[in-house]
């Protein structure tokens, strides 16, 4: 029964302050919304009028909250993804060589050298210029890759699974910092390291993972690391150590050799190692909400160094694209803003799942590396609740009294508030092979969201 006439009045207003002022003088508790005109025109109006949207979004959120992610195996991409010779995957929406930026090109060159499809960078470039390899987004295969995110058949991949849907997702092994393939470096040491990872690290990790009776619960580690000052995108230290703690005994027991010490040092010495497990776990979470007709919840945010692409639950695997923005923040050494490449990587899948920049309030330490202050970090997470369908109690943020991470980005809310998802990211140098030049904040372009609402409007019955 409608309690409008029986309950004591509590009001909310949107519009002229005359009305909220009059309510306050009458002693009525009133919340005045800070309103601004929405973007998206008729498309937004029509999608808001869609009767399926509300229930569809609630379903999308609940599927995300009920998803899980456990580490089931480690194997080469050729086995895991059926990648054949000359088939490479990359981060972000589809792209060709001619439009690719420095780090992406560098990574593709490194991939060619690593797969011995060319014996020099020039030779590799010539083949790539003629489209001599098949390029596809990682997302098209259910995989994700950080930075350039290039995956080749002989790279070893983590394989994760979501018990709630049976879906699987994959991600390569993190090479570490500095001059690495994912930042577009292709020097001999890069290739040497990749060779070691294929010959030693991958197989060792596989032994350890297969030796465990119970799968490592990656989602549970994420839940704990959020409470230990990590946010899963730019800060993964606690997660990396917890992962190592869970796996190392099994790597040793699994009958491996003195390579274990090198592997343990490699993993333990790379604060970002766990990123390559967080990302596929987040992919599983957002995938669980895919293909719900009428849902305006974002399931993918990804960049290829040139374009920023998003996908929504109600529009299947259609990409909505806009220009990738350049991150701003703090720069390492003598690097400046001029050295930074536009936004790159599938790691925005962390924000799509409610962690990373969305959970910045859980990682105050990070503000020292991306610029900004601790209050900014809290304000950012609070702002993200405005554009999300709900919260994920599994990822409780301590300083917000364990309030769940803001989860389920709603395209209609982004357009209505003008608030863009906040991403916390590393910055790649725009010249191939430079490596990381800094870390900072970036958002998707609004065009991606206006394109998405047009796509959602097209699908209205």
């Amino acid at each position, binding site marked *: 029964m409608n309690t409008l006439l029986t309950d*004591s009045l509590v009001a909310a207003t949107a519009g002229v302050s005359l009305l909220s*002022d*009059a309510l306050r*003088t*009458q*002693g009525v508790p009133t919340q005045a919304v800070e309103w601004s005109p929405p973007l998206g025109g008729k498309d937004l109006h029509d999608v808001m009028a869609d009767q399926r949207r509300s229930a569809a979004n609630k379903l999308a959120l609940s599927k995300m909250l009920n998803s899980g992610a456990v580490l089931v195996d480690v194997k080469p991409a050729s086995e895991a993804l059926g990648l054949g010779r000359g088939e490479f995957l990359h981060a972000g929406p589809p792209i060709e060589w001619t439009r690719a930026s420095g780090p992406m090109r560098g990574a593709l060159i490194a991939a060619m050298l690593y797969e011995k499809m060319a014996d020099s960078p020039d030779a590799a470039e010539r083949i790539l210029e003629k489209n001599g390899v098949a390029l596809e987004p990682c997302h098209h295969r259910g995989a994700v890759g950080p930075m350039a995110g290039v995956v080749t058949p002989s790279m070893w991949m983590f394989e994760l699974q979501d018990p709630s849907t049976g879906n699987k997702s994959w991600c390569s092994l993190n090479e570490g910092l500095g001059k690495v393939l994912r930042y577009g470096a292709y020097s001999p040491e890069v290739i040497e390291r990749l060779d070691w990872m294929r010959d030693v690290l991958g197989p060792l990790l596989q032994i350890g993972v297969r030796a465990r009776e119970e799968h490592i619960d990656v989602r549970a580690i994420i839940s704990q690391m959020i409470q230990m000052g990590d946010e899963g995108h730019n800060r993964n230290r606690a997660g990396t150590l917890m992962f190592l703690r869970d796996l190392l005994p099994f790597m040793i027991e699994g009958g491996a050799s003195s390579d274990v010490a090198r592997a343990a040092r490699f993993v333990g010495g790379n604060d970002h190692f766990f990123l390559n497990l967080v990302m596929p776990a987040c992919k599983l979470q957002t995938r669980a909400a895919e293909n719900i007709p009428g849902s305006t919840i974002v399931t993918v945010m990804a960049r290829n160094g040139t374009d920023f692409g998003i996908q929504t639950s109600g529009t299947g695997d259609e990409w909505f694209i806009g220009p990738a923005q350049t991150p701003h923040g703090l720069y390492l050494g003598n690097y400046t803003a001029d050295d930074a490449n536009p936004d790159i990587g599938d790691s925005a899948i962390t924000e799509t799942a409610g962690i990373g920049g969305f959970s910045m309030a859980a990682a105050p330490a990070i503000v020292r590396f991306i610029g900004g202050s601790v209050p900014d970090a809290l304000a950012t997470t609070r702002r993200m609740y405005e554009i999300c369908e709900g919260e994920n109690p599994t990822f409780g943020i301590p300083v917000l009294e364990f309030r769940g991470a803001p989860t389920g980005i709603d395209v209609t809310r982004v357009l209505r508030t003008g608030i863009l998802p906040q991403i916390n990211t590393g910055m790649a140098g725009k010249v191939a092979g430079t490596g990381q030049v800094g870390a900072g904040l970036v958002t998707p372009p609004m065009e991606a969201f206006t394109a998405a609402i047009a796509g959602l409007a097209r699908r209205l019955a």
Partner: protein
Amino acid sequence: MPSDRAQTVPLFSQSSFVVLQPFLGIESFTNLGVSSKISWWLGELGSFLTIENDEARALPTSLFLPKTPSRLTRASINEWQVDGALLGVTRVLRTPHIALHSTVIRAPASVEDDLRARIGWGAGLTPEGDDEVAGFLLVARALGISHSLVGSVWKSERTTTFSAALLDAALHGFAIPVVASAAREIALGSMTSRTQDALLAVGHSSGAALLRGMETAERCFRRAA
């Protein structure tokens, strides 16, 4: 709204409070006392006023202000001088009211004597004895029990001015929302546990005393029926 009316206040309607005849005159009020949530005032023409800021505790004698002032005068029918600022009435709150049932039975003399003796008994702003009598008055009104407990009984020196004003209010069927609900439910024969919990939470011991008084009236009714 002009800026000198930055904090305008809702005022209970005089018309819902017939007997006390408060606020007819333009008068200044003297502060008699303050507790954490409420302050009470006596007008130079004899009227009684309480000041508070929570609708849920809306007493029939109340004026709502954000905080207790030091000076208070009624300047006109809808304006108050509060610490030098002129505040206007913005809203009239409905006072919870128990309708008077036509007489069905007469309260036994023993019950009346007992209640009369309780006036002023106990410590505090509203002595427990007064609360019992107030509870009785409300339910008696709802059930049509006539009695001789009237204003003169409690306007003797024995009790606080505040409590006497509340007894007057109860006599005429006015009470704060939770007490009015409880009285209605008891008169109908069934009080929900939620209402009972809310009633018992009123004041320190007021709630329990009000309940006792209400049950006394209900028992009279049942015995006579």
